[in-house]
């Protein structure tokens, strides 16, 4: 009996250890939360992957504020906006279709409110995002792991929100097709570096007016939302037997076209929206409830063009479990 108990314990311990590693490796979609940063959709950027038939559900919340924004390249305040707060609550789910394909889905509920002026904030469901994540190549040896991923994403407005109500609008009101390549290398299962590059194609958005001015007058209600590139570099560290993950990242997004907000004018979805930001992230994989993890994130926009100088605090809870043996 004693031997059996020990065996059971061992098995349990092994299982737990195994599970934890898998939990650690499964939150590939958490970086979806970046898209709540400044209403600019993004693709999952992390270098993690779920196994077949695993499912993960999560709720992320974020609190984004700014009191300065870039009008073109001019950093300014605007007392008729005051502090613009953008709160987001995003339910998400991820599923391992196979050991090489993950499916990720998210739908944020956004609410905005300005502290100054007489304009009203708005709230509602923003964009439904669906991503497929592929793992085309990986390499392991005793010390090093090299992983590569490709994500292909699609997002589309989930409610009839008005995109031409910047900067209070829920989002850009456009469909977005994205393609991202990610490379991640990990040393001794402790330190890692990750880099990724993405191309974001946006279709158009419909304004509720059929004339608008960019650098010329345009007689239609359809607005082009600029395509963009996005790059990320991240350095990370695992601690306490991979119970805690610490990461710092630098992100840069650049629109490939678009106009500047004109002096003292309202922003519109046709604007060129560029930004760079730094982000710090902490994740905790609790040993008390198997499959649960908590995460917290802090982000700060450093430079920008036609975007708010956002500070973002966010956090979330995730639960992961296999649905088949």
């Amino acid at each position: 009996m004693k031997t059996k108990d020990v065996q059971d314990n061992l098995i349990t311990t092994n299982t737990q250890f195994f599970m934890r590693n898998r939990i650690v490796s499964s939150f590939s979609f958490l970086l979806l939360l970046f898209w709540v940063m400044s209403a600019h959709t993004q693709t999952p950027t992390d270098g993690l992957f779920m196994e077949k038939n695993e499912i993960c559900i999560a709720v992320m919340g974020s609190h984004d504020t700014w009191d300065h924004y870039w009008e073109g390249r001019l950093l300014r305040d605007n007392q008729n906006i005051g502090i613009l707060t953008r709160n987001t609550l995003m339910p998400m789910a991820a599923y391992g279709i196979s050991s090489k394909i993950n499916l990720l889905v998210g739908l944020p509920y956004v609410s905005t409110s300005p502290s100054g002026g007489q304009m009203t904030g708005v709230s509602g469901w923003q964009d439904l995002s669906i991503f497929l994540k592929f793992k085309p190549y990986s390499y392991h040896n005793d010390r090093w792991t090299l992983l590569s991923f490709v994500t292909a994403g699609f997002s589309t407005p989930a409610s009839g929100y008005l995109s031409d109500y910047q900067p209070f609008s829920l989002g850009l009101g456009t469909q977005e097709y994205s393609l991202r390549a990610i490379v991640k290398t990990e040393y001794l299962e402790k330190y890692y570096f990750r880099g990724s590059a993405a191309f974001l194609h946006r279709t158009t958005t419909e304004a509720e007016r059929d004339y608008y001015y960019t650098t010329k007058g345009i007689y239609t209600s359809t607005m082009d939302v600029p395509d963009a590139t996005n790059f990320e570099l991240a350095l990370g560290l695992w601690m306490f037997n991979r119970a805690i993950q610490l990461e710092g990242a630098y992100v840069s997004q650049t629109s490939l076209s678009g106009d500047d907000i004109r002096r003292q004018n309202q922003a519109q979805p046709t604007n060129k929206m560029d930004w760079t930001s730094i982000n710090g992230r902490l994740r905790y994989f609790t040993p008390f409830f198997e499959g649960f993890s908590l995460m917290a994130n802090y982000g700060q926009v450093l430079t920008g063009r036609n975007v708010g100088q956002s500070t973002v605090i966010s956090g979330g809870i995730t639960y992961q479990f296999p649905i088949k043996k």
Partner: protein
Amino acid sequence: MKSLYTLSFWLSVAAVLLIFGCSKDYPTGAEFEPYQYSSLDQNAGTWKTVLLQNPEQIVIDAPQDITQASYKSELQALKDAVSKMSAHDRSAINYWTNNPIIRWNEIARELAAKYNLTPAPNPDGTYPAPSAANPGVYPLFPFAHPPYASRAFAYLSVAQFDALVAAWHYKYKFNRPAVFRSDNAVNTFFDPVDLPSYPSDGAVVAAVSRDILSAMFPLEKEYLKEKAEEMKRCLLLSGINVESDLIAGDSLGRGVARVFLARASTDGMGAAQTPRPVSDSLANISEAQFGWRWINMESPRRPVGITPRFGNVKTWAVPDVKAIRPGVPPAIGSAEFNKAADELKQIANNLTKEQRKIANWWSDGLGTYTPPGHWNRFATNSIIQYRYNPVRSARVYAYMNMAIMDAGIACWDVKYYYNYPRPVQAIPGFKTILGTPNFPAYTSGHSSFSSAAANVLSYIFPNERAAFEKYAKEASESRIYGGIHYRFDCEVGLTQGKQVADFVIQKASADGAN
């Protein structure tokens, strides 16, 4: 599994790549084919002009006879130029079409939108003001707000009208045949029109439009000159006019523009944007008389509203705007006021998508061509639909824009006579989906402009009356949905706009064009 993986991977890649780069060119103006004029209005030279005392107030020389060598060499120069026409020339001709007055109206709308930006505050919370003396120093001159835009459209359109009536007069006086009649070897780009060619009506329009708009938007002088040159070249290349037609047209256009700019320089617009003590004293008078005063609610507060003395600017058709000044609006806190305020709160709290859309569709706020621009667009659509010739097109724009400007003057007289607070000022905690304009609430400018324009357009295009009236009503109501006007602002504005239109229609019905 492997094949599913490979397939879905490449499908995703292909989808993203395929979609990339499918950007479209959006219209930057009316999209229409050159059309055959519904009539030539041979008698348009007898129509009553608005400012010109008579069609020969601006004198032009009689043309050389077409039998003379000078004319023949001009014809030869025209044919040479046509034979060397480039693809760029062709696209320019297709842009200007055979009714270029439409494009000049669009250019005016474009400039209104470009310059319709309110000054940003200084770091110390004060506001700079545009200066006509230093137009290129921020804030650029002009700030093309609705009163300014209404005036720019009016001067442009009425000057075009008078100039074209004079052109028609001279055309039939001198009777120089159309180019294709003089020489049947000349290829005309458009359907040939049997209109005497001297002076060129196109060149008249180019010159008068260039000069009026250059005065209204002084920083655009070079741009406007290029546009006018391009247009005149198109008149030559499309086989409509020879050089001497163009020169005479340019001279006539310049002369008419001078007459209108002389009026503009003394019409009172220069004093419309008052210094603070003047606008304060207007508000003090209202407050003493009625117990309320309008204040700007922006932060930092703008000390002076838009053009407090626009109500004193010289009208075109209304003899005295004070004579059509409506009665006192409901006292703040009265039952009638509370009813209107409750309606606004009720709408704001339960805004339907349709109401939101109407508010935004008619917003025509900062950075746009303003409500007067919106109505010029409707006028353009009807001009094209009814295939109007240039002089009849000019008449539409002229009477509509006189009505719009006079409605603006009448409305601004009311606004600064009563200095009535906006909803965001009078209703505690009230929030809006549109920015509240920087002038008093009563009466609604959108309603006055729209009602004046709709009634004049309905007079000219009676079959379209239902549509125009619907537009005016919707434009008016849009301000309620946007939370920036009370219903009584809008209803009284519509009534006043109609009163203004009646004066303009009276004038139009006596001009001999019907």
